[in-house]
C-alpha cells in the first residue's frame, strides 16, 4: 500500500541533514513552500545550500532560514526580489555565498540531474562573466558552455492537490519551478492544500506523477 501522506510538517521535514542541498520551489511569492521551510527552521538543519529562483522575501520561508544563519550558500538567478533584507544582511556580512545562474540554466541543470544526464551544452551565458571558468565548445558553428547537473538532497515544493500516490496538480503560475524541482532531488516533500482520493485526479492532467514524490503534507485549506 502506497501512502505518501504524512501527518505533520515536522514529520515532513524529518531527517534533513546539516549541509544538505535543498531545492526551494516558487517564483517570487507564488508557489513557494513557506510552511515547509518554516518547519525546517524548527527542525534545525544548518549549513544548507539553498537552490531557489530568489533568495527569500520578507521574514519567513527561505528568508527566515537565511536570517537565522542556516544557509551557507544560495544558488539562484535573482537574489533580491520583494523585501530581500534577510539576504542582503547575510550577504553583506560575508556570511552567505552566492552562485548566480541564469534562470533557464538553473532550471535545466536540475532537469539534467533528474534525467540522469552528465551535463549539457548551453548557448546561454557564452561570452559573459557567468561563463568564466566553464568549458566552452563550438558545435555547428555556435559557441556553447558546458553546464553540469544540479541535484538536490531534498526538494521542497507546493501544490494544489495530491492523492496518496503523490500525484500532483498545481494552480496557474504557481506551477513554476515545482515540477522540475520535484524530479531533481533524492527526497521530494510537497505541501498541498487538499488531499483527494486515489483516482480522483484525471490521469491526462496530472502535472507531476507520484513517482517523483516522497512525502506530502496538508497545509491550510479545509481541516
Amino acid at each position: 500500500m502506497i501512502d505518501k501522506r504524512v501527518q505533520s510538517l515536522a514529520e515532513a521535514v524529518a531527517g534533513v541533514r546539516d549541509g544538505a542541498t535543498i531545492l526551494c520551489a516558487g517564483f517570487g511569492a507564488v508557489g513557494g513552500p513557506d510552511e515547509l521551510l518554516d518547519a525546517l527552521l524548527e527542525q534545525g538543519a544548518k549549513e544548507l545550500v539553498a537552490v531557489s529562483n530568489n533568495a527569500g522575501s520578507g521574514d519567513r520561508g527561505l528568508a527566515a532560514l537565511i536570517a537565522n544563519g542556516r544557509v551557507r550558500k544560495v544558488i539562484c538567478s535573482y537574489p533580491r526580489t520583494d523585501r530581500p533584507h534577510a539576504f542582503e544582511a547575510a550577504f553583506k556580512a560575508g556570511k552567505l555565498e552566492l552562485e548566480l545562474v541564469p534562470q533557464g540554466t538553473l532550471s535545466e541543470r536540475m532537469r539534467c540531474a533528474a534525467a540522469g544526464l552528465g551535463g549539457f551544452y548551453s548557448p546561454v551565458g557564452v561570452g559573459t562573466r557567468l561563463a568564466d571558468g566553464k568549458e566552452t565548445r563550438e558545435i555547428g558553428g555556435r559557441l556553447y558552455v558546458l553546464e553540469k547537473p544540479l541535484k538536490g538532497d531534498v526538494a521542497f515544493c507546493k501544490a494544489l492537490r495530491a492523492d496518496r500516490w503523490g500525484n500532483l496538480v498545481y494552480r496557474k503560475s504557481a506551477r513554476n519551478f515545482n515540477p522540475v524541482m520535484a524530479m531533481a532531488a533524492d527526497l521530494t516533500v510537497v505541501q498541498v492544500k487538499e488531499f483527494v482520493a486515489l483516482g480522483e485526479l484525471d490521469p491526462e492532467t496530472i502535472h507531476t506523477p507520484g513517482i517523483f514524490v516522497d512525502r506530502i503534507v496538508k497545509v491550510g485549506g479545509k481541516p
Partner: protein
Amino acid sequence: MKPLSRRQIAWRAAQDIADGAYVNLGIGLPTLVADFIPGDREIVFHSENGILGLGKAPAPEEIDPDLINAGKGAASLLPGGSFFHHNDAFLMIRGGHVDLSLMGAFEVSERGDLANWTTDDPGFPPGVGGAMDLAAGAREVRVLLEHTTKEGQPRLRHRCHYPLTAPGCVKRIYTNFAVIDVTPEGLLVREVVEGMSLSALQEATEPPLTLANDWRLLAAPAV
C-alpha cells in the same frame, strides 16, 4: 526636436510586432509595449514563469494571487492561453520558439552586444534572472532604452563597459531619438525624430551611424 516619451518609445516598438508573434516583454520599459499593440493584431505574450497568452493587468477585484507575470505583478490570461512549468518556459526561450524578446538595456555596442543585467554596483549583489536566456535564445532581440544616460553620456557604445548579457544579440534599437538597426556594417539609422540632425544624433552616439536610404521621421502619437 521632439524626443519620444517612454510611452512613445514603447508605442513605436509595438508597431513593429507582427500579427501572430510570440513575444516576451522584459521588465520596465518593454512592459509598456503591451498597451500599444495595434487592434488588428493578435500577439501571444510569453512569461518566463510559465505562461503563454498574458492579458492586460487585472482589475483589483479580479486579482488572483497565483497568477503573476515575470515582474511579479498581477496578471491575467487570455482565452487560448496556457500554463506550463519553468523548464518548458525556458525551452521556449532558449530554443528560439519565442519570436521576439523586447528588453531594456544599460548599453548596446555597435556589434549588438547587450549589457542589461548589472552595473556592478558594489553594494548590490546582482541578479540575472532570465536576461541571459532571453538574449541568447529568443529568435530576435530588440531593445528599448533612453538614447543617453541622465548625464548625457551615450548608451550606444563602441563596446559595452558594463558586463555583457550576451554578445551580438541585438538586432534593433528603439530610443527616444531614433530607431537604429544593428547590421554587419554597423549601426544603421532607420528613423530619427523631427528636428534632429544626423550630426546631433551622432553626437549622442559613440559608434559611427549611417543613415538608411529610406530613412523616415520617427513620430509617435501622444500616448
